[in-house]
């Protein structure tokens, strides 16, 4: 009899509780804001095993905040600044590098940081054949704070690998020492294999590092870090806690931005969102170069695409400006000269040969000319190949990457309008970056990065001529791709023939700036003239930061700090924090801590700030009750007719 | 009659497998358990019995929608189980059925014309559309739906119960059958129209020469139909015929205790008479489960006259006076 009543009561209660608690939530948070908390996103979900082992796939990284490298890499100037290392000596003659470590550094479990830990980490990197071991043959512990590297191959990239790329010290000896010793002693590949398997299965208790913040916990929605009190530079750090909510999608990041729930992040924003976020009184957005962009890759397996004229024609059809706009107007800039050299260093490397370079401004009539020259014919607005078939190309981009997909759609439309039949395919991204699609060369046109996150041009040319994700270009762009660039006839300001692959390798090892420039210019000219790929637009990183909560370094004067966020925004944040560039904004944090009741705090806060804040800010005392009632009233409204019905 | 009967049923048995509850175990219901009778050419044979006695199953077996478990059905002297395919089809066409429920017997989505034209087309009785219309109109007139034009394009829901039953009869006779199994044709019809339907069937017997197996639970209807058409009545109980005789003989002079009980229970539309009557009281009102029928005479559990022999030996159907057969130990001499 009464069962129905109880069900009803239970539902009502659940809803009332839900709405009541939800309304009180912001108040509780406001109260806790006495400790300075910074929000930036993370992408880790807590799953049962191996999240803390730095050698396991999908482990929790947190470089720059929890873990540190030997040096900070100023990407803009290609300079290295001491971090875990205090100083270093590159001895070319002895083929040795000596690194002096910082003293007073502690692991988060309280153990002292020594050279042994560097050795351990590097031995384990050896186990996984990390690139640094292409350049060095051994690592030696000289004393507690000195490490010596025996260099195998002297290269301009040494500092990059030794101090930055493979210099993240993640494995303290007291935990990983046994593995490192095994590696040092190991004789055969099978032994190494066993160690690898063992190491991957190893489950440490927590994420361990030496950085300014200590890993506290991971929940289904967040990772929480707290300030490490024994950090050597702890006095300069004024942030007590960093919370990294789990966000994997841009669109969700924007929503966090809008509501002021993030303090620092780099989600790519389309113009509409960018404009809106910039208008927020508490938000600031600084754009830096991502040091990468996207390019069309021509597959040389396709007989028509082997013809330079066809590649050029396609380049002339594409409107780089529009494609960049489609990919995301505020985040992409069209390439001026498709050479592979990044814009930020364009003047430095190719400033004096620009007149010899082709910008490939959109020119359909030129494209038509080129195609006709190549034997193509146009009938009813459609192009036919010299052997009379419809000129049809497949265009493959990774499905989940909406900016690329949007750009690819625009390119497809442009090519279709021009009369080339292009079929756009969007396989799932994990499948795209595998031998099923791009890496297996299964496409006519595809997208790839160019620039490769380094201002020194070697990385870009390496990706163009040598390998992508350690797969040779012959696998990606056709068996005879290399043949095309073995004997390249130079033109413009240069003459003679060169081997593009050899030039690229040369660029890696030479230290002489003049020689570097000459080599890079030749390679840039080759790319620009022979179009192995066609770079279209460069990406820009939009760094969002909350100026209401924190004070940040001025982008005008400290551009290099912001530019460092390219390829590692958390690391840049860590660097800014330990150097005291990020300070809590007293007007925000002190106001909160001095006022007794949190409710009024939020109120005054919203009144002081602009009107936009009032609308979106956290709940005020008066609106709380109204919100509590909201859902309850809705439910009640739905039930009233029923109750009335029954009474009859 | 000297002619071979048009239908002869010999020792027919029909058992149905039945699942009891959801918990498995298959039992067999002996719906018809050894029934023999014949329908004379242009004659009437009536089966009377309470619900569940198996009378409908007999009818459905004769028209061929239920397969007999044992026994034979002879059509014009020929065993129907041994007919060639064409002969069997011919037999099926010649034996038609009129169902109890005129609401369920007509496809609600088809007009009267569509319902009647389909069998005519199937058997090539009428071919062109005009021919079909003519023939259908003829049929409707024959069953008393006048004028046919008023009914031909109507859907079943636009007709009254009596009119529907007439359409059903028209459909049954459309293929010129020899025999019609009339399975409770008036039970669902309004009281005031029932005799009309019976009269129509009798009229068809006269005019077209149809024979009937008339199945009913209503002694009044059985009497009316059989007596007017000169047929006999058989009373069924739990899958068996317990008494057969000419119509009036069964009504006026029932011999089997079961028949007696039934007939004495029928209400009479005469207040004085009905108040004087003393219905035969049975030992029990519960019909035994057909899954587990009593031994011996199936009626012995309820029969006020039962003796020891009744529970042991099953009485056979014997002629006790000319044309009057009873299956009861009381009359076995």
């Amino acid at each position: 009899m009464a069962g129905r009543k109880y069900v009803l009561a239970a539902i009502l209660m659940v809803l009332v509780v839900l709405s009541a608690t939800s309304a009180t939530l912001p108040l509780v948070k406001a109260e806790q804001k006495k400790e300075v908390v910074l929000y930036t996103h993370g992408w880790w979900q807590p799953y049962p095993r191996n999240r803390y082992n730095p050698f396991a796939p999908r482990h929790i990284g947190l470089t720059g905040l929890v873990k540190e490298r030997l040096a900070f890499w100023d990407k803009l100037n290609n300079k290295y600044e001491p971090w875990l290392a205090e100083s270093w000596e590159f001895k070319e003659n002895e083929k040795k590098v000596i690194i002096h470590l910082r003293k007073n550094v502690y692991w988060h479990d309280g153990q002292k940081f020594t050279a042994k830990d560097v050795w351990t980490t590097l031995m384990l990197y050896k186990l996984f054949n990390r690139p640094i071991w292409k350049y060095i043959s051994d690592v030696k512990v000289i004393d507690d704070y000195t490490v010596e590297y025996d260099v195998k191959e002297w290269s301009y990239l040494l500092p990059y690998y030794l101090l930055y790329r493979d210099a993240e010290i993640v494995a303290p000896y007291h935990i990983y020492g046994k593995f490192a010793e095994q590696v040092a002693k190991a004789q055969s590949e099978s032994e190494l294999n066993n160690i690898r398997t063992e190491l991957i299965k190893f489950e440490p208790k927590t994420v361990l590092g030496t950085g300014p913040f200590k890993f506290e916990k991971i929940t289904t929605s967040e990772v929480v870090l707290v300030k490490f009190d024994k950090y050597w530079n702890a006095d300069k750090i004024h942030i007590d806690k960093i919370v990294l909510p789990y966000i994997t999608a841009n669109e969700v990041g924007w929503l966090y931005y809008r509501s002021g729930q993030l303090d620092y992040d780099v989600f790519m924003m389309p113009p509409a969102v960018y404009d809106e976020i910039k208008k927020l009184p508490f938000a600031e957005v600084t754009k830096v170069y991502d040091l990468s962009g996207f390019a069309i890759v021509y597959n040389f397996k396709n007989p028509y695409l082997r013809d330079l004229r066809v590649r050029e024609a396609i380049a002339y059809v594409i409107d780089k400006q529009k494609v960049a706009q489609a990919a995301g107007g505020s985040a992409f800039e069209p390439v001026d000269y498709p050479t592979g050299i990044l814009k930020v260093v364009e003047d430095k490397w190719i400033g004096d040969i620009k007149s010899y370079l082709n910008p490939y401004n959109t020119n359909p009539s030129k494209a038509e000319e080129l195609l006709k020259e190549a034997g193509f014919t146009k009938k009813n607005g459609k192009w036919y190949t010299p052997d009379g078939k419809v000129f049809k190309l497949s265009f493959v981009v990774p499905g989940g990457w909406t900016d690329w997909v949007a750009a690819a759609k625009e390119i497809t439309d442009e090519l279709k309008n021009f009369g080339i039949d292009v079929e756009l395919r969007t396989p799932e991204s994990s499948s795209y970056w595998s031998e099923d699609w791009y890496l297996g060369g299964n496409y006519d046109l595809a997208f790839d990065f160019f620039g490769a996150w380094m201002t020194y041009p070697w990385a870009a040319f390496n990706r163009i001529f040598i390998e992508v994700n350690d797969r040779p270009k012959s696998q990606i762009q056709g068996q005879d791709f290399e043949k095309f660039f073995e004997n390249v006839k130079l033109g413009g300001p240069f003459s003679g023939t060169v081997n593009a692959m050899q030039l690229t390798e040369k660029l890696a090892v030479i230290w002489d700036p003049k020689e570097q420039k000459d080599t890079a210019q030749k390679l840039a000219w080759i790319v620009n003239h022979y179009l192995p790929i066609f770079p279209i637009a460069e990406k820009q990183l939009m760094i969002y930061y909350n100026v209401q909560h924190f004070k940040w370094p001025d982008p005008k004067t400290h551009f290099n700090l912001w530019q460092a966020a390219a390829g590692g925004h958390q690391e840049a944040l860590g660097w800014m924090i330990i150097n005291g560039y990020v300070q809590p904004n007293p007007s925000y944090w002190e106001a909160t801590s001095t006022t007794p009741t949190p409710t009024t705090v939020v109120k005054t806060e919203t009144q002081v700030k602009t009107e936009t804040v009032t609308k979106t800010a956290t709940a005020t005392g008066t609106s709380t009750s109204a919100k509590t009632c909201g859902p309850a009233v809705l439910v009640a409204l739905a039930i009233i007719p029923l109750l009335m019905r029954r009474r009859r | 009659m000297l002619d071979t009967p048009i239908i002869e049923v010999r020792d027919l048995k029909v058992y149905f497998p039945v699942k009891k509850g959801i918990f498995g175990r298959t039992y067999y219901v002996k719906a018809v358990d050894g029934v023999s009778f014949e329908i004379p050419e242009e004659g009437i044979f009536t089966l009377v019995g309470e619900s569940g006695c198996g009378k409908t199953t007999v009818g459905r077996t004769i028209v061929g929608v239920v397969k007999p478990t044992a026994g034979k059905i002879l059509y014009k002297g020929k065993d129907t189980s041994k007919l060639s395919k064409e002969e069997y089809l011919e037999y099926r066409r010649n034996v038609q059925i009129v169902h109890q429920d005129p609401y369920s017997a007509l496809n609600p989505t088809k007009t009267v014309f569509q319902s009647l034209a389909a069998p005519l087309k199937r058997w090539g009785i009428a071919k062109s559309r005009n021919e079909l219309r003519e023939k259908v109109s003829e049929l409707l007139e024959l069953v008393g739906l006048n004028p046919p034009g008023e009914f031909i394009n109507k859907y079943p829901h636009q007709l009254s119960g009596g009119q529907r039953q007439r359409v059903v009869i028209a459909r049954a006779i459309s293929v010129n059958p020899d025999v019609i199994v009339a399975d409770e044709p008036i039970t669902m019809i309004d009281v005031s129209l029932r005799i009309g339907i019976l009269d129509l069937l009798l009229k068809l017997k006269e005019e077209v020469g149809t024979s009937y197996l008339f199945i009913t639970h209503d002694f009044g209807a059985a009497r009316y139909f059989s007596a007017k058409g000169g047929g006999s009545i058989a009373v069924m109980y739990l899958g068996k015929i317990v008494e057969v005789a000419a119509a009036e003989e069964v009504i006026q002079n029932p011999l089997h205790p079961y028949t007696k009980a039934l007939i004495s229970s029928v209400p009479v539309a005469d207040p004085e008479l009905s108040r004087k009557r003393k219905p035969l009281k049975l030992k029990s009102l519960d019909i035994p489960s057909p899954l587990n029928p009593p031994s011996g005479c199936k009626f012995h559990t309820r029969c006020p006259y039962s003796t020891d022999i009744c529970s042991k030996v099953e009485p056979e159907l014997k002629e006790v006076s000319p044309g009057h057969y009873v299956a009861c130990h009381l009359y076995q001499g």
Partner: protein
Amino acid sequence: MDGSSSALKGYMPVLKWFTKRLLIALITIYFAVTLSFFVVKAMPGDPVQALIQMFVSQYYMDYDSAKSLAEAAAPFIPKGSVLHQYISYLISFLHGNLGVSISYSTGTPVKDLLIQSIPWTVLVVGSALIISFAIGILIGTGMAYVHGSKIDSFLAVFFSVIRSIPEYVVALVLLIVFGFHFKWFPTRGAYSPNVTPGFNLPFIKDVLKHAALPILSWVIVHVSGWALSMRASTVTVLGEDYITYAKIRGLPSRRILVSYIGKNAILPLFTSFMLSIGFMFGGSVFIEYIFAYPGVGNLLYQAITMRDTYLMLGVFNIIIVAVVISALIADILYGVIDPRIRRGA
């Protein structure tokens, strides 16, 4: 019924029926598992390849060591012909071993991942199911009471339209409006960092808050279906003689509502309710994806995008088993609830 004469005799057929029903369930599971194995196996994309690419791009390894590492990290990826894989999969399935995930911290047993995710889905979808069922029944009964009226026909159309609005649309709108605009509810995940998981009030409150929007989305979409079926069922019951007769007997309307209309009208909905419970693990992909809720649906989405074959199979099989079991339970319970079946009509 003479079952009482011998207790054992009475239960034998039940036992027999149960065995038969169980056998059918097992056969169904077998075929469904087999079917999904081959479908998933037919998916393009080698899981080892996906792993290699991850190593190369995220950890800067060279291809060969990435390959050996991938193979080392994934010793569980069976080699050999598909048939061989199938058999070994079946055998380990029988042992309760669902294989190992390659996408989530490679090497984590799928079982562990499922054990982590299932409670969240049960919480969200389970309570949403119960809430929507309860509300749906209330609304449906109300509509049946006024069936034929303007309100009823309006509501009938309204609910059919609501029912056809895709759940991702509802979830998105709720997320944007209540999560970000009004900030009434948290938008992602299952609980906040400032609470300690366990049986304590702040944690429970926090979990409920996080579950609110996913539950609400589900309820909005599904309540209409229940309301409409309940309406139909109640209208049928309202036309039954026993309702009229109960009214004539002067039974109080509450009694008629509960034990006459309620009981008899809910019975036919019961089976589909049980089946919905079975399907709840597979039915929440969109909602869990949108709210980043760490349930089975999200796990499945991740598994598919990462080509995590065994994780996918694990989720599929959990759903299949859940569906079959809930159908089995529905059959048994139906027998218990409905006397007509319990006592063999």
